[in-house]
Structures are given as structure tokens and as C-alpha cells.
């Protein structure tokens, strides 16, 4: 960690990629008083400024992950807001949106305030809470959405559980219009997914594990899209994993439905075959699906049907994953691997260009949740991520800043990673043994 409070920061000579203003050129960025002061060539450093030589690096608006589980309150053995915010910074994220499925759930303004305050104390990425759609995440009646938004919630969701009651989803999409926040939903018809613990298909059949069919996600996505169309509300579909679901979102967007949607790195890069051997680090919800689905998620992410990259960072203590497959909890950590995975496997393979990566990981997430970042325009928050696109590294969970290590990507060799993360003009994370 380096740099003291309010020290001006001049990021010099990097390739600045900021799709929010169509900017992609070698340039300097000056951060002053926590904000972007200037973007241009040959900027001079004010007195006392720290200069960071960025030649050969990418300078971009800070990464934003709109879907993380920070587990606090109630699950501090898995993650705390502080450890999560620091893990986020180490992954290049300057902002994360914390899901409210904690214990107790974040369903009132006091709880929202707690998450915000802990996030500010953490000194890592900014932490913005989402509030619950329903009281206690019970799926019965609306939580105090207005009170939570006033306290700082940037959206509402019952994530962890889908909103099964279509009537409640209608109310949520209508009521949220007052406050202009999205309604994020985990699309899963619980009747169809039933006792499933992985994707339905040959692997599940062979392993003797119950499957969740694609249809369990498809019907819920279609329902949400229909209710969004009915109400004019903004539906944000989380971690979309199915081919037909993506087609449905694409068509809805063409009709003008207000929908944004997430793609996760794991649903793009892994299939249900990763469960082979009952590997609980490949257990997540929605489950890893077929090759065709993974390809559809990549295609949807590249063409923008899926607007944002989200990690669904879901830390679990190793004891909890060290169980028989049926008994292990869903989810994997993702904050410290997302950028490297997507850069290596999408940008590195020519499927996605760098500006579009920045669009999906910074600009679009800010737009979807009405957040202040996602741009290096003058006056914007001084949230910047520096990336070395040539850095080769190997995923080693033992080095994560997250408290948990449940990743299916252990040992993967990646190219490209964040080397510095700046939040509000402060360097909150810097890769050690890199440039001085």
C-alpha cells in the first residue's frame, strides 16, 4: 500500500481506455481531491503529486462488480466486508455491490447503513449494498424499498432465492420505478429445479446427482421479461447461464424491454463436466451447464445481450465445501480471478476487444445500477484500474485476500491482471514486486 490521503496522483503514459467517452489513446490521467481532474497528453504534476509511470499498462475506469456476496453480517468465517473489499481491490475492482442475503438479511435502512459504513471503513473497493425485495427474503411482501434506497441501497434483490411469486415481482418492478433502481432476480423456477444440485444431463445421470434443467432458468427469465414489459420496470437478470434464456433477453431488448443481465466467468469457461469426481468447487447455482450453453453465454456477453460481467463472488469456508457433493453449499469466489480469466480467454482469443471488456466490466455495470464510476470524465470519481495485459500468472488460492479459497480455477495460467487499483484517488491496492 502506498500513497497518502489526498496526494494528487498522475498516471502517466499509459494506454487510457475509456469507452464511456470513446477514448482509447496513450495519455495521462490526473487525479486530484479524489476525482478525475484531467485526461490528456503531457499533463504536468502538481506539487506533491505521486507520479505513476504507466507505459505499457492499460489505464481504465475502475472495474465494477454488481454481484458479490460479502457474507457480513452472519457469515464472517467466510468473508467480511473488509476482506471482501480488499479482495475486490486486488482483483482490480473499485466498486462492488453486496448482495443482501446475509444473516440477518439486509432488508431495512439500518442494515443498509451498516454495510455502507463497514465498506467505507474497509479501505478497499467501494461497497454498495443492495436491499432485499421482500421482508426477510421470504418472498411474501415488499421490504421498505424507499427507506433502503434513501439509506444508500443501489438496487433490490432476493438473490440466493428467486422471487417465485409473480405477483410480488410485478409489485417490485412497479414500486422500484419510484426510486429508479433495478430489481435484480436470480432466475430459477424452484418447481422445475426441484432437488437438483447440478446441471441436468449425462454427467448428472452418471454421477447419480439430481439435475436442474435449463428450463428451470428459461421459464423464470421469460416470466421476468414479461413482467418487466408489463410494468416498464428495470429487471436485472443475474448470472444468466442458458442458451434459450439469452435468446429471450436478446429478443426482449429488441422490443425495448428494460433489461440488463449478467455473465459470469465460470459460466463462460466451464461446463458441467467440471463436476466430475464430485468436485464441490464446481458446485454453484445456477449450475455449470453444457458446452452449447457456455458458448451462448460467451456470445451473449460479446454481443452485449449480457451487459455486464459479474463474479457472483460466493465465499465459503473450506470445511463447508469439504463434504459430499449434495451437502456442500453453492458458489465460488471470483473477485481475484475474473479479470485474468476474461482477459485470457476472451480478449486473448480475439473474441472481445479491450474497450468492450472495459465497457462490460466498468461502464455498463455503472450504468445498470446508476453508480457514479465507470468513466474517466473530468469530475468523475477517481476510480481507476491499471492493468498489465502481458503479465503471466498462475491462480493460487492460497494467495487470495479473500478469506475463502473455493475456486475451480486453481492452477490456471492466465495472462493479464490488475497491477494497481485506485479508489477515490487513493491507491488501495498495488501488485507487489512490480514497478516502483
Amino acid at each position, binding site marked *: 500500500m502506498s500513497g497518502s490521503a489526498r496526494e494528487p496522483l498522475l498516471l502517466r503514459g499509459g494506454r487510457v481506455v475509456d469507452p464511456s467517452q470513446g477514448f482509447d489513446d496513450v495519455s495521462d490521467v490526473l487525479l486530484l481531491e479524489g476525482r478525475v481532474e484531467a485526461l490528456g497528453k503531457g499533463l504536468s504534476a502538481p506539487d506533491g503529486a505521486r507520479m505513476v509511470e504507466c507505459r505499457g499498462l492499460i489505464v481504465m475506469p475502475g472495474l465494477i462488480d454488481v454481484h458479490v456476496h460479502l457474507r457480513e453480517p452472519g457469515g464472517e468465517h467466510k468473508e467480511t466486508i473488509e476482506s471482501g473489499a480488499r479482495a475486490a481491490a486486488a482483483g482490480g475492482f473499485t466498486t462492488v455491490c453486496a448482495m443482501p442475503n446475509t444473516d440477518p438479511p439486509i432488508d431495512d435502512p439500518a442494515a443498509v447503513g451498516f454495510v455502507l459504513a463497514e465498506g467505507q471503513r474497509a479501505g478497499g473497493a467501494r461497497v454498495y449494498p443492495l436491499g432485499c425485495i421482500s421482508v426477510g427474503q421470504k418472498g411474501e411482501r415488499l421490504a421498505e424499498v424507499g427507506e433502503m434506497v434513501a439509506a444508500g441501497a443501489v438496487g433490490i434483490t432476493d438473490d440466493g432465492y428467486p422471487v417465485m411469486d409473480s405477483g410480488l415481482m410485478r409489485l417490485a418492478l412497479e414500486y422500484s420505478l419510484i426510486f429508479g433502481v433495478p430489481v435484480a432476480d436470480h432466475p430459477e423456477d424452484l418447481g422445475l429445479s426441484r432437488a437438483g444440485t447440478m446441471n441436468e444431463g449425462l454427467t448428472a445421470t452418471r454421477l*447419480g446427482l439430481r439435475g436442474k434443467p435449463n428450463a428451470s432458468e428459461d421459464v423464470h427469465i421469460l416470466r421476468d421479461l414479461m413482467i418487466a414489459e408489463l410494468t416498464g420496470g428495470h429487471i436485472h437478470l443475474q448470472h444468466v447461464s442458458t442458451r434459450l434464456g439469452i435468446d429471450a433477453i436478446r429478443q426482449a431488448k429488441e422490443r425495448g424491454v428494460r433489461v440488463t443481465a449478467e455473465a459470469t466467468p465460470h459460466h463462460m469457461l466451464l461446463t458441467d463436466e467440471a463436476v466430475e469426481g*464430485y468436485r464441490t468447487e464446481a458446485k454453484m447455482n445456477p449450475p455449470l451447464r453444457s458446452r452449447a450453453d457456455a458458448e451462448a453465454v460467451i456470445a451473449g456477453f460479446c454481443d452485449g445481450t449480457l451487459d455486464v460481467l459479474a463474479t457472483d463472488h460466493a465465499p465459503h469456508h473450506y470445511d463447508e465445501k469439504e*463434504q*459430499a457433493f*449434495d*451437502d456442500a453449499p453453492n458458489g465460488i469466489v471470483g473477485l481475484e480471478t475474473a479479470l485474468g480469466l476474461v482477459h485470457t480467454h476472451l480478449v486473448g482469443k480475439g473474441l472481445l476487444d479491450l474497450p468492450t471488456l472495459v465497457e462490460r466490466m466498468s461502464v455498463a455495470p455503472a450504468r445498470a445500477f446508476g453508480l457514479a464510476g465507470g468513466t474517466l470524465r473530468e469530475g468523475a470519481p477517481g476510480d481507476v484500474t491499471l492493468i498489465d495485459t502481458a503479465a503471466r500468472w498462475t491462480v493460487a488460492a492460497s494467495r487470495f485476500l479473500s478469506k475463502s479459497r473455493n475456486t475451480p480455477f486453481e492452477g490456471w495460467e492466465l495472462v493479464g491482471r490488475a497491477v494497481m487499483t485506485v479508489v477515490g484517488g487513493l491507491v488501495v491496492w498495488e501488485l507487489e514486486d512490480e514497478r516502483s
Partner: protein
Amino acid sequence: MTHTVAHFGKDLIGIEPLSAEQILLILDTAEPFKEISERRIKKVPVLRGKTIVNLFFEPSTRTRISFEFAEKRLSADTVNITTTGSSVVKGETLVDTARNLEAMRIDMVVIRHGSSGAARFLAERIPSNVVSAGDGSHEHPTQALLDLLTIRDRLAKIEGARVCIVGDILHSRVARSNIYGLTKLGAEVGVCGPPTLMPVGIEELGVRVFRRVEEAIEWADVLNVLRLQLERMQGGYVPSLREYNRVYGVSSARLERVPKELLILHPGPMNRGVEIDSDVADGPHSVILDQVTNGIAVRMAVLYLLAGGAPEKAESAKGGVEE
């Protein structure tokens, strides 16, 4: 501590990883062990000094007793640990259970568990030999082996035989192990049951799917009739046991319509009047009690081989009577 690696690895977790040769090796090794159970003194010193833990997380009478007889007739020291209800023993994790057993310096564990993969989970974490006595809906390898032995006894060979498994394929570990074993040994395999109880992608395992039991009976040389768990009705997979019996029950009326030699197997315990009618279970086609007898011989063979016994010496190994 030395734990031997048998001719098919340290453990027997499933049939899927075995080759046809390895399956035949177990069946051939079981042959000489059949005779021990017919003796007046049913005990040989093959596993003397070995400690075997029978770790049953699910209720089981016949499989546990069959293993226990096999172990005792081979002179092993056995301990039974039976817990029901939860998949985790009183808050203790499966990992801790495994480590504690290991600390007691045991040689083998026979595990029955409600979660698919639990046997493998244990086997990967302890050096002792692990034998699956059924894990979730995954595999029940010794059941398949005893079914294979029983079919071979009657038909002389398995290759070319048409075997249809009838019932709840979705939840059945017996079905999966049988499919692997039978297809590897060259049998033609069918499965028959309500589509609500048929797992997705089952055809890709090389089996043909019959929707009507009448068609299955017409096609098959052997029917392996699975127990319909009561929970399936509660889960809504079938509306009632009565209706299941009407549509899928193996009855003498259905068998008489196709007069031919047909073997009827059932892994037990039977629901008489549900998946199988009593006159079939007790009738001339039934080899259900042969299966039970063969179960002990097959399990003796598995334990013997895992303990490092040479297959060609099985005959002489059993020669001595425990003094």
C-alpha cells in the same frame, strides 16, 4: 501401515471405472468362495487380523448383513457403525469420521451413504481400502456384481443376454452399476420405467429405453425389477402405488402373455404387490434368493482381492478352516 492395492485399485467405488477383465476377475474369484457358505464350519482364515468397519449412514439390513457374513466367514474383525437420518453423524463431518477411523488403524471400510460420491470422498481421504455398499443414486457395485454372477450362473454367459432393468431408474444406484457391468460384459441392456423416473441422457450409456413394461418383457431374457421407494409416491413421481402396479408391476399375467424362459431378479427388499407380484417373486422365473446367496460370495471375493489376495489362489486360500 500398508494398504494393498488390488487388481482393480485400492477401492471398489463403482463398476464404471472397471474393465470387463476386472469384472470377470471378481466374478471368477467369487466362484470358489460360494462353497464356503455351504460348509458346516463357515469360516476360513483369509482375512485374519484385518479390521473392517461397516459404516452405514443409511438404513440397510440385507447389504450390511451380507457384508458382515462375508467378512466374518473370512475371519476379519468387524465393527458396525450405523447412523440414520442425517447424512452427517451428530455434527461430525464425513472427513472427521474418516480421520478418526484411520487413527484407529483399520484396514478396510465398507460405506453406505445417502449422498452420491460419498464413498469416493472417503476413499480419496484415507489410505484404507474402501468398498462402496451404495452411495446415493450413484453406484452399488457389489449389488451389480452379484446380479452379474447370478445371471451368469443361469445363462452361462452374459454376453448377448438381453437384460432390462425395470422401475425407478432416476434414483437407482443399482440401475447405474448394472448398466455399466452389463454393457461392459457385452449384454444388451434396456431400462423401463415411468418417464418421471427416467434420468436425462440415459440412452447415452448405451441402453434402450422402454416406456411400457409389456414391451420390456417381450424383449428381455432377464428382468431386474427395482424396488419402488415409498418416497417416490410422496414426491409425486407416481400418483399411487396401486397405479404403479397397474402400469409397471411385473405380474404373472404379463409374463404369461410371452411364454419364454425369463429370469427375474430383484435387489430387495421387495414391495410385493407393487413392483412385483408375489406369484412372480416366488415363481419359477425368480432367482431372487440366489442373488442373496451369491451376494456373500461376491463380497468375499471383493474383500479378498482388495486385501491383496491372488485370484488364482482363491481356491487354496479358502482351504484351511479357522482353527
